[in-house]
C-alpha cells in the first residue's frame, strides 16, 4: 500500500540560524511588525510501500531513530507523520510555543510552511538508498528532502500571508529576499494555517 511519510526534525536547543534569520528580516530588511515568529525544521517527504500505513511508519521510525543523518535524539525532536492521502504536512506535536524568536503581533496571524530544497545534487537518492538498505517491511519509493521554514506572519488573509513570506524568502536582489537563492534552490508552500493571534 502506498503511504506518505513526512519526517520533521528540529533542534531542542536554540536554533541560531532561525535567530539570525529573525534578526536580519526584522532589523535589516524591514519586516518588523509583519514577522511574528520563525522556525526551521529539517524535512523529508517520503513515499513508501508496505503492508499498511502503521507498518510503514514503524519500519521507518526504527531506522531514522538509529541514523544520525536523520535524527540524533540527544539534540533533536522529531515527528514522523504518516498519511495515506491528505497533505500530511503537519509537524505533529512539535510545539512551537517555547521557541525564540516569537513576538506578540496584532491582527490575524498565519503560519506558513515553506519547503526549500536544493536542485540536483543527488542527496535525495542517497537518503532513500540509505533507508532502503536497512528497512524491513517497507520500501521507500520517493524522497524529497530539504528545510521547512515555518514563518508566522501577520496578514489579512492566507493569500497575503503567502505573498509576504515569498518576499521574505526568495532572494531576488540585494535588498529583497533572504531564505533561498532561486538559482539552486526550489521552494513550495506545504501548508498555511491561521493560528490564534496573541
Amino acid at each position, binding site marked *: 500500500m502506498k503511504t506518505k511519510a513526512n519526517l520533521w526534525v528540529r533542534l531542542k536547543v536554540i536554533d541560531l540560524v532561525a535567530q539570525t534569520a529573525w534578526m536580519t528580516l526584522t532589523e535589516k530588511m524591514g519586516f518588523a511588525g509583519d514577522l511574528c515568529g520563525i522556525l526551521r525544521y529539517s524535512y523529508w517527504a517520503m513515499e513508501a510501500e508496505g503492508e499498511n500505513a502503521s507498518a510503514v511508519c514503524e519500519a521507518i521510525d526504527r531506522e531514522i531513530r538509529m541514523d544520525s543523518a536523520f535524527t540524533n535524539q540527544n539534540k533533536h525532536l522529531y515527528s514522523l507523520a504518516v498519511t495515506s492521502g491528505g497533505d500530511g504536512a503537519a509537524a505533529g506535536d512539535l510545539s512551537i510555543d517555547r521557541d525564540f524568536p516569537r513576538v506578540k503581533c496584532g491582527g490575524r496571524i498565519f503560519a506558513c510552511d515553506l519547503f526549500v530544497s536544493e536542485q540536483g545534487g543527488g542527496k535525495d537518492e542517497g537518503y532513500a538508498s540509505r533507508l532502503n538498505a536497512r528497512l524491513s517491511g517497507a520500501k521507500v519509493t520517493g524522497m524529497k528532502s530539504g528545510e521547512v521554514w515555518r514563518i508566522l506572519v501577520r496578514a489579512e488573509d492566507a493569500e497575503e500571508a503567502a505573498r509576504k513570506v515569498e518576499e521574505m524568502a526568495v*532572494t531576488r*536582489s540585494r535588498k529583497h529576499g533572504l531564505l533561498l*537563492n532561486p*538559482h*539552486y534552490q526550489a521552494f513550495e508552500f506545504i501548508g498555511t494555517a491561521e493560528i490564534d493571534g496573541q
Partner: protein
Amino acid sequence: MARSFTGKVAIIQFPGVNCEYETADAVRSVGLEADLLRWNEDPVLLEDAIGMIIPGGFSYQDRIRAGVVSAKDHIMDKLSELAGAGRPILGICNGAQVLVESGFIPGIHWERVDLALAPNVMEDRDGYYCSWTYLLRGGTDCVWTMAVGAEEVVPVPIAHAEGRFTTDDGEVLGEMKKNGQIILQYCTQAGQIDPAFPINPNGSIENMAGVCNREGNVLAMMPHPERATWLRQVPEDLGGGWGTKRKKAGGDSGKMETAGPGRIFFESLKRWKEGDA
C-alpha cells in the same frame, strides 16, 4: 587620532571572517597599505580608500546561506555606491559569496541576484574541501587580473563548502560570456579547462573560479590568493612550475620569502593604482 583610509586598501571585517589579517599582509607585500574596517564602523571612511577587499571566512557563520546576511548589512550600501563609481572591490571566498548575494556580481543588472555560489558538487565527497587548484585567466579587462599573463597558470588554494558558481538564467550566462566576465577558470596544471573533479573542484559551470563585473573593477573569486602570496606557502609536492620552483628553494629561506603565485592579484591592484595616478 582620526581614522583615515586615504591611500589604503580597506579590508572589510564582517563578524566571523577569518582571513582579514593575512589578506592585509598580502596587500602589504606589494607595497600598498592596508587596514581593517569593522562592518559597523562609519562607511564614509571608505570614501578615501584605494579599494576594498572582503576577505574569506564565515561571516555570520554562513547562517541561512553563505554571504547572504552580510549582503544585507548597511555597509554594503556604501560599497555599492563606490563600486558604481569604479572603485576596485575584491571578494575572496566568503567575500565572493557576499558579492554574489549582493548582486554586484555579475552585476549586469546591478544588485539583482543572478548567480549563486551553491554547495560543492564533487566526486565521492561532499561538504568542505581544502585543496590547491590551478587558475587560468579568461575574459578581458579586470583591475584585479591586470598583471596576469594570458597563458599563465596560477596555482592558488581553495577551502570552501559552497563555491559552485551557478545560475538558472541562460541569458545572464550568455551576457557574462559575451562581456568576458568569466575572468578566472579552474584548469589543469598545463592550462587545460577540464570540467572533471578535482580539476574543477566544486562543479562550477564553465569552470568558473572568479567572475568580475562588466566594468572589471569588482571581482568575486573563490580561491585564496593571500594563501599563495609567498613561495613558502606553495606545497613542495605541488605539480607544475611553481611546485618545481618551491622544491628548488628547499634549504634557502631567502628564496622562500619571495613572491608566490597568488601575489599577482595584489600586484594587479598596484599596477592599476599606478596607472591611475
